[in-house]
């Protein structure tokens, strides 16, 4: 165990540094060949899911990553959890680089970080009872644990997520979606982690169940002083749940801000459009900001600012120069030339 060094309270728990991830489009060799200028060239294409993301998760916070489908938010979650290898960049956990560790050295870190998945119907092994599912991580990380102790632990954790502990011998298909998601959370909590990545944990659930699961996650956060990386497309949940929000577009960060700041004064044009599009229970029809054009494909990324083809403020500089993430006067970080130059207030 590398637990000899004391975790410093001020250090970021997780640091994502200059992360990029691309997926090669697997095609046959012959399909990769193209004629170009009279010559036969081999062209390999790839989906650029993440393009240079820097993000720090502070100890004890809930950092939300929002964006629309295909913006790379789930890929970030998977790379952080070690389910995918980054193409470039690094992940640090509590000061230690983890993306290049061999599996055995990674184990002590693994038990500190857990993940909750989107689809409650696919995230539990249909052939294993709840008891077996919950036991597994505990047994794996504590090989010497006794059966009695294990059973007690399963009962306590099931109790804490609000699933009747007498149902341990049941199979996942005997539970509703909401209950399955609770069991999924229970599995993550079994090893007493300090960091949880939640990938759209409530988007497959019904409205009344969403509230239940969200409350449960907040309870767990308080009682166990957890840190969350919360991936979602639902901004109304973000406003409620997170301490800070990172908005992603085409695999890059557009804006990173305290939740309240972001909702009160969104700066990036994309963030503004997103926030204005949330359906609310208001009387009048919403006056949402219309975005023109289509989301470019992550196979051929646009030059300059990725958002420039849909942005009403875009000028020539936006088309060629990629904006860096810069600190603004209200504390939020925004990647936009317009904000930097003061063209956009």
């Amino acid at each position: 165990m590398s637990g000899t060094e004391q975790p410093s309270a001020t250090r970021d728990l997780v640091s994502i540094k200059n992360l990029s991830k691309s997926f090669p489009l697997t095609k046959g060799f012959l399909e990769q060949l193209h004629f170009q200028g009279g010559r036969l060239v081999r062209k390999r294409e790839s989906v650029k899911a993440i393009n240079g993301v820097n993000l720090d998760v502070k100890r004890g916070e809930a950092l939300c990553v929002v964006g629309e489908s295909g913006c790379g938010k789930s890929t970030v979650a998977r790379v952080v959890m070690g389910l995918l290898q980054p193409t470039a960049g690094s992940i640090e956990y509590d000061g230690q680089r983890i993306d290049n560790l061999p599996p055995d050295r990674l184990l002590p870190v693994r038990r500190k970080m857990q993940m909750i998945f989107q689809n409650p119907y696919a995230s539990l092994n249909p052939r294993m009872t709840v008891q077996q599912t919950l036991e597994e991580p505990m047994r794996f990380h504590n090989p010497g644990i006794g059966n009695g102790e294990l059973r007690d632990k399963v009962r306590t954790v099931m109790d804490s997520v609000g699933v009747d502990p007498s149902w341990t011998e049941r199979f996942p298909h005997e539970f509703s979606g909401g209950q399955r998601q609770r069991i999924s959370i229970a599995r993550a909590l079994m090893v007493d982690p300090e960091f949880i990545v939640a990938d759209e944990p409530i988007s497959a659930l019904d409205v009344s169940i969403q509230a239940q699961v969200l409350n449960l996650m907040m309870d767990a956060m308080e009682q166990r002083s957890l840190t969350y990386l919360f991936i979602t497309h639902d901004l109304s949940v973000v406003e409620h749940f997170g301490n800070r929000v990172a908005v992603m577009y085409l695999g890059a960060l557009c804006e990173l801000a305290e939740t309240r700041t972001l909702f009160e004064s969104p700066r990036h044009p994309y963030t503004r459009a997103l926030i204005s599009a949330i359906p609310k229970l208001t009387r009048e029809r919403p006056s949402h900001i219309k975005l023109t054009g289509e989301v470019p494909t992550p196979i051929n990324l646009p030059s300059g600012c990725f958002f420039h083809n849909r942005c009403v403020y875009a000028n020539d500089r936006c088309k060629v120069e990629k904006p860096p993430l810069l600190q603004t006067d209200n504390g939020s970080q925004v990647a936009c030339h317009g904000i930097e130059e003061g063209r956009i207030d």
Partner: protein
Amino acid sequence: MIRYWQLFKESAFLYRFRRDKVAIASFSVLMLLVSLSFLAPLIAPFDPYDPAGIDIMDSDIPPSWQEEGDPRFSLGTDAQGRDMLSTMLYGTRISITIGLFAVLLQLFLGIALGLAAGYFGGRIDSFLMRLADIQLSFSTLMVAIVVLAIFQASFGTELYNDLAIFMLILVIGIAEWPQYARTVRASVLAEKKKEYVDAVRVIGLGSGRIMFRHILPNTLSPILVISTVQVANAIMSEAALSFLGLGMPVNKPSLGSLINSGFEYILSGSWWITTFPALVLILLVLVINLLGDWLRDVLNPKLYKD
């Protein structure tokens, strides 16, 4: 254990079985054939493996209901004077045994290679699947004929007759593993993408444990379905090989070799030596296939919901 039994009792599986007359009938016939053949030493009127109990004078006696029939031999006797009923009971036992063990071997090879190909992907996958393609481009019978003929030629018929049952299991088992490997690989590819696999990877489990403990149990339904069909296929392959004289020897006949041995006499009027084993073979293969079809219908749709 009681809970599993209860789950089974309440399951859609049992419910649909009870409602399906074809399934019930096939299952009953199969069970009847299996139990009769495996109880052969107890219930057969004669022991066809015992040369002392066979009298060559009893040869070619027609079934007992015919004029020249003998009440001792209800289904008549074959050219060597063996009681057809007893020989068929023993023969069915051999056919079923070869079918089952050949499929077990296929299962073992297919699961191991299919899991590896599906889970690891990449070069291992390409290599194993090309190997399967090559294997599939030779028909089972062709491979079996070549291998068995070479074996017979090089080690002599004597040794071959002693080892015939193992050779048949081995040859049929090895020749048909690609069926399994492909099915397993396809289900592994589908299961591998599901989030529960990611969940155990997050825990840190090794790939062996993930493959066998988590993915394999979820690919069992299609394996079960093709297994039934494969047992029928293996029995057919064995019968075909025996019919060609490359299968079980005459002194330990399977259904196939019985059909073969009677075939020479069919024109001289001894139709029963071929017909009865052929009927049993057809019945056996038919009920197994019917059960396989039924299983596929039951297990295929919506595995996750109810």
